[in-house]
């Protein structure tokens, strides 16, 4: 039995507390293989299982690629008939009137503009809060404070978007209506406030990582020159982490663009070409969610909704890729 590799592995792990030594993978198939009486057979099977394991894990890992490919494939598969009739140029129109007795219009520009307006507004709100909180948690908070703040922010990330949307509908929208004396509280602004809350955890956690990974020597040099703690944070640490912070904001924006339920519930869903935060808007995500339930599968309207989905997919894809590139560049330096 001395030749059996498993026994040596056990020895190698022998320094660890006994409770850890019992592995959950004892027995089963592995145990059955080991029970094969002659050592030669065992070794051959062990070699095969090593190769098999590698192949198995590689195959599992490739499913992610497969899913991405299938997403692109099936979005286009459902959307493509639109190209021949009524034609892609219809998508560039400024009016979205998918259900009409005379002439249906599938211009997605008001939806794109709606998504853009809500996203930009949400970013304007989320950046100071997100980055400010990240700076505080990374640089200024005492350790005990940090242990309290971080789970709180993780909790915000955990609240389902439909619950935030519900809160927005019942509490926030009436508040916005009262404060700004509007006829309805279901506006781009209400949506943006909720989305800022959703983007905040993403921005905070990634920006915090970026700030914390600024080398200690930067801070020490600054403090040694007589700068105060605040000056160091403001003039040295934050600028040094800037690219990471930018990436954090972009990933937060990616989350905002793709958010569906909250905007569906609080932005009022009027497909208009507007830039005012006090108007109702309709985003791309909300359009798909609201209308997909009522269309006939395969109809022009159905295909148009898939084009909206494709636009959305590419928008988030590009945002993510640029953010990753920024992150990588800054991690290398």
């Amino acid at each position, binding site marked *: 039995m001395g030749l059996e590799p498993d026994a040596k592995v056990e020895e190698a792990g022998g320094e660890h507390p006994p409770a850890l030594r019992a*592995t959950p993978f004892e027995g089963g198939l592995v145990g059955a293989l080991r029970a094969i009486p002659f050592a030669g057979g065992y070794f051959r099977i062990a070699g095969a299982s090593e190769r098999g394991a590698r192949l198995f894990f590689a195959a599992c*890992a490739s499913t992610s690629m497969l899913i991405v490919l299938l997403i692109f494939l099936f979005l286009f598969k459902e959307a493509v008939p639109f190209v021949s009739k009524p034609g892609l140029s219809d998508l560039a129109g400024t009016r979205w009137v998918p259900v009409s007795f005379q002439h249906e219009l599938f211009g997605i520009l008001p939806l794109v503009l709606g998504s853009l307006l809500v996203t930009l507004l949400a970013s304007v709100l989320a950046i100071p*809060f997100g980055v400010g909180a990240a700076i*505080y948690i990374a640089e200024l908070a005492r350790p005990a404070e940090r242990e309290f703040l971080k789970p709180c922010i993780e909790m915000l990330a955990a609240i389902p978007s439909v619950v935030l949307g519900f809160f927005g509908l*019942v509490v926030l929208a009436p508040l916005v209506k009262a404060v700004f004396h509007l006829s309805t509280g279901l506006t781009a602004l209400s949506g943006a406030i909720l989305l800022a809350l959703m983007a905040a955890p993403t921005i905070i956690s990634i920006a915090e990582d970026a700030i914390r990974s600024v080398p200690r020597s930067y801070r020490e040099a600054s403090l040694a020159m007589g700068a105060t703690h605040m000056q160091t944070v403001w003039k040295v640490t934050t600028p040094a982490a800037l690219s990471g912070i930018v990436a954090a904001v972009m990933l937060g924006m990616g989350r905002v*663009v793709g958010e569906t339920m909250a905007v569906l519930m609080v932005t009022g869903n009027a497909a208009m070409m507007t830039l005012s935060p006090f108007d109702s808007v309709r985003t791309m995500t909300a359009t798909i969610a609201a209308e*997909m339930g009522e269309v006939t599968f395969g109809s022009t309207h159905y295909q148009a909704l898939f084009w909206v989905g494709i636009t959305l997919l590419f928008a988030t894809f590009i*945002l*993510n890729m640029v953010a990753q590139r920024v992150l990588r560049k800054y991690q290398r330096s």
Partner: protein
Amino acid sequence: MNKRNLLDNLGLWTFRIIAYSVVGAVAYILLDIVVKGAPSIHWDFLSSPPRKSGAAGGIFPAILGTVYLTSGAMLVAFPLGMASAIYLSEYARQGRFTRAIRLAIITLSGVPSIVFGLFGLGLFVLFFGFGASILSGCLTLACMILPTIIVASEEALRAVPQYLREGSLALGAGPWQTIRKNVLPYAIPGMVTGSILGIGRAAGETAPILLTAAAFYLPRLPKSALDPCMALPYHLYVLATQHPSADQVRPMQYGTAFTLVAIVLFFNVGAILLRAHFRKKYQW
């Protein structure tokens, strides 16, 4: 000197107020849901089906549906995600294949949830012919939470110190033996806690199941995986926005929201506590 101190303090307090205002927002939202939702929670509400199109009765079928969808999604995504993470952390070398996988995972994690819904509709509901069903919903949700699980599991694997692997390999063990005996036992707790976060996400998502699985009202409980089901987030959405007398059913809405938040936070807080526990237990 005094002016410097003053400015320093001002800056510190600005940042402190900003950080705590985020916490305040979280607390306000959760308190609102808990205070207005808790009174609706009683045994009847949790155990009976809705009556009068959601205006009365309970939410039992929706809870059950969410349990089905979430556990089904985990059943698919957890083994797949763990295996992917093992490949990426233990086997993969720098190269085109690995880069492509990483790119795919990053892309997946950025795909909007409603786009997953469209994808699930195109592939599972229509192409495979599963129809709007629990199966379609589970598979769609599984695709969505896969990146969360992979990233969490890989982090847990990477936290296992290199010398445990080197010791085993130096004694002649193969990579799979090493992983099985010297890496996984220490990484599994971290992998599981990380994946619990995926459960929370799957339970709370609405957009993907909107197009693939959910029905607002079903007269009977689903009998097989090919039946559609009710689900908590979708139930809340319909009650809040589509119900003819949405203002009158507010207690039902808050009750549903409370139940959903309770389920999701249960998993999340559980994951956070477990993680803290294991961090203390395994300090390398």
